[in-house]
């Protein structure tokens, strides 16, 4: 009896696992009518069809966390039948996931080069730039190491966290140091920009190189120190729908929402500049 229960349970668990492994098989078809478009935001550049349904899985760079969370709320409000699932992480890791066949509908990357790897693999056709970001030094509010300029990061005993160089924010930090002819040895190379910000927030490091938008998102928990414009690096964010998308209509509508005037407002308030 007990064994039977156990094996049943095991089989059930496994079936669930296998089902999860397969791509989501929800009602992907747009069902007719019924959804009269709910109260919309101000801009009208939204998907004009009120009949979108299904899930839209959005792979987005970690630095887009705040603005894309807002996009998710706005989009789900405008399309009650749609469930947006955000997967945030390092752009390069997300790109690897996509090229290895992880099911996704939209990809928003923090650099053109990671987007190019996805396009080269045939997972997307083309991408549209929708935002631009520059780098800033983030220090804990107490500023224990007394950082005032970029060159302070080279002092011995100053603990600096950077993104690892494979990640867009790491590449940008390397560019900044190159431009300023400085050599900085970080105590940690984090997997994405939010991890760098966390180390600064916790006061574990004296400084980190992050995006302007991250400093803004952290509110008063970190202090920003500007990098001179002539040595600063910027990165451009492209977005695209993916060819393997299960719900291309909803995915297209989401991308359109990001590119809309309403989307631009959200991005601007997060600190992004226009590409």
């Amino acid at each position, binding site marked *: 009896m007990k*064994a*039977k229960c156990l*094996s049943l349970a*095991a*089989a059930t668990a*496994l079936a669930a*696992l296998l089902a999860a492994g397969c791509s989501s098989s929800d009602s992907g078809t747009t069902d007719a009518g019924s959804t009269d478009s709910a109260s919309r935001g101000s801009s009208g550049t939204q998907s004009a069809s009120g009949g979108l349904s299904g899930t839209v899985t959005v792979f987005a760079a970690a630095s887009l966390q705040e603005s894309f969370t807002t996009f998710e709320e706005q989009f789900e409000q405008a399309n009650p039948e749609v469930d947006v699932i955000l997967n945030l992480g*390092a752009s*390069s*890791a997300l790109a*690897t996931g996509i090229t*290895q066949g992880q099911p996704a509908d939209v990809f928003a990357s923090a650099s053109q080069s990671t987007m190019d790897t996805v396009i080269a693999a045939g997972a997307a056709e083309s991408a549209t730039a929708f935002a631009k970001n520059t780098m800033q030094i983030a220090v804990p509010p107490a500023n224990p190491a007394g950082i005032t300029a970029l060159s302070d990061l080279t002092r011995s005993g100053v*603990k600096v*966290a950077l993104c*690892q160089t*494979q*990640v867009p924010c790491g590449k940008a930090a390397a560019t900044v140091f190159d431009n300023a002819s400085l050599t900085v040895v*970080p*105590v*940690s*190379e*984090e*997997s994405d920009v939010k991890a760098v910000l966390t*180390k600064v927030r*916790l*006061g*574990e*490091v004296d400084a980190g190189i992050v995006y302007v938008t991250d400093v803004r998102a952290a509110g008063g928990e970190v202090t920003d120190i500007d990098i001179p414009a002539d040595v600063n690096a910027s990165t451009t964010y492209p977005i695209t729908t993916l060819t393997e998308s299960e719900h291309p209509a909803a995915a297209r509508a989401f991308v359109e929402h990001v590119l809309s005037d309403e989307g631009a407002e959200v991005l601007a308030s997060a600190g992004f500049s226009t590409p």
Partner: protein
Amino acid sequence: MTRSVRQPIRRSTAPWPLAVPAAVGVTFLLVPLAAMLLRTPWSSLPDVLRDPAVLDALRLSLVTATSSTAVAVVLGVPLAWVLARTHFRGLSLLRALVTLPLVLPPVVGGVALLLAFGRLGVVGRWLDEWFGFTLPFTTLGVVLAQCFVAMPFLVVTVEGAFRGLDRGFEEAASTLGASRLATFRRVTLPLIAPSLAAGTVLCWARALGEFGATITFAGNSPGITQTMPLAVYLAMESDPEAAIALSLVLLTVSVAVLALLRDRWLRPGSTL
């Protein structure tokens, strides 16, 4: 020490309600490993394995896993003895707390370590103030993270051995005038040696595979805190082929450990 001579009944076939899920289970466990072998870039494998960065990560992994296992043995064996042989109020609570890291998600362990030994941590603050010494982002921090996660494996294994021990030998030793410490060293320890060895290997394997607590607490710095699991995770972001090759190295080590356990210590009837 009584030996049962009853042979268990062995049948060649299992009833299908057991055989089917068992087969599915085996398949599920083996397919990912087989897939890894199929996708391993054999031609570029030697290059990957000669890469100084990879050798650095492997060396660091072996050094830290061995160090944390040594610490775990020194602290864990006496702890296991206390849990098995003493009686006081709150002992069962203590046992539960000691084994908590067994079930705690490693990343949570990393957060806890950061709050304790980080630069602004409960203990770490004073370390920094008095000695100007911080643990995160150091190799010692890696050892600490691994030890925190892996030591309970050793404690649980060794405690089981202490409990299952025939007390007659120890009593005989003390009757003959051996002190408690001498008895422990000369009688008890040799008796539990097989379990101690098994626990040590388990602990070492767990330390070698430690990822979550390490990246959270010690960060990622090549040659200093970047162990093999971190190298695999980060290589996945830029160079999946290298990540597969690195995974293969870890898989080989794991298989070797398992073989060692099976042949040397994991005999049926040993206390594990």
